[in-house]
């Protein structure tokens, strides 16, 4: 190993900052998630599907490189299968918190969980 003292200090600072950032973001994300959630699926920035997270089901949306298979189970969502060079979004696995995105870059598909209460709240205001 070819590390000097400055390297070690720098690495400790980077590690500490990443832990602090993780804790902060996690707190925010958990606090933002309500009991009733929906998942919004967009393709090329256009909403193509709205999923009720309280029902276990499977969905399919069209991505740039092929179909993207989405699975909802126990209020969690994941991309089960998709066609892409590295399958990053299916490897990502389950997501259950609001605003934590599942991003399938090559397919231009993004899935984000939102609080259902906020959405209906907005509807009520408009009506």
């Amino acid at each position, binding site marked *: 190993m*070819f*590390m000097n003292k*400055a*390297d070690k200090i*720098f690495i400790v600072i980077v590690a500490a900052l*990443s832990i602090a950032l993780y804790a902060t973001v996690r707190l925010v994300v958990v606090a933002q998630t309500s009991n009733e959630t929906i998942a919004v699926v967009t393709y090329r920035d256009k909403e193509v599907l709205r999923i009720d997270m309280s029902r276990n089901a499977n969905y399919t949306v069209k991505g740039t490189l092929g179909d993207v298979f989405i699975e909802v189970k126990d209020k969690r969502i994941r991309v089960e299968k998709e066609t892409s060079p*590295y399958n990053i979004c299916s490897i990502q696995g389950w997501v259950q918190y609001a605003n*934590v*995105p599942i991003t399938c870059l090559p397919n231009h598909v993004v899935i984000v969980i939102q609080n259902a209460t906020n959405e209906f709240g907005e509807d009520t205001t408009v009506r």
Partner: protein
Amino acid sequence: MSSKKRIRRMTIVTMLLAMSIVFHMLEPTVPLPVPGVKLGLANILGLIALYMYGPKEMFAINFTRVLIASLLRGIIFGTGFWLSLSGVALSSLIVVLLKKTTPLSPVGLSVASATFHNVGQILAIMVIWSSVMMVYWLPVMIWMSIPTGILTGSLASQVLRRIKKGGTP
């Protein structure tokens, strides 16, 4: 600088660039446990250029590498290209600044390069997808940049030590 030295320098920089493109192209085939995380092997060549010649050569190698590798992959001006470019731009800038202002060795600089490469990419993706919450993945990416940075920095140190020993160039 004599013309012989200039040609030698140009040849070596070109060879470093060629190697960095090969690493850039092969890197995604190396499996890592976290999705989206790469070893950053191509950055070793930029770091070597920085120590051998200076910031100008490092910037030239890093930017040309992203451009040519994206052309070869057929993703030029696509999302992947802009992500690579933002990562390389921020990491190269930070590495040059840290080399000038701190006593960090190639290992420390490599960790900084990996860290800020990820920061640059996440910032770009936040702009492209208009989603602030992409920041959720940043701590994981930064955490992973420590072992990958140490690995690539150690490799760069070894190469630089051997180059120094051999008296090249």
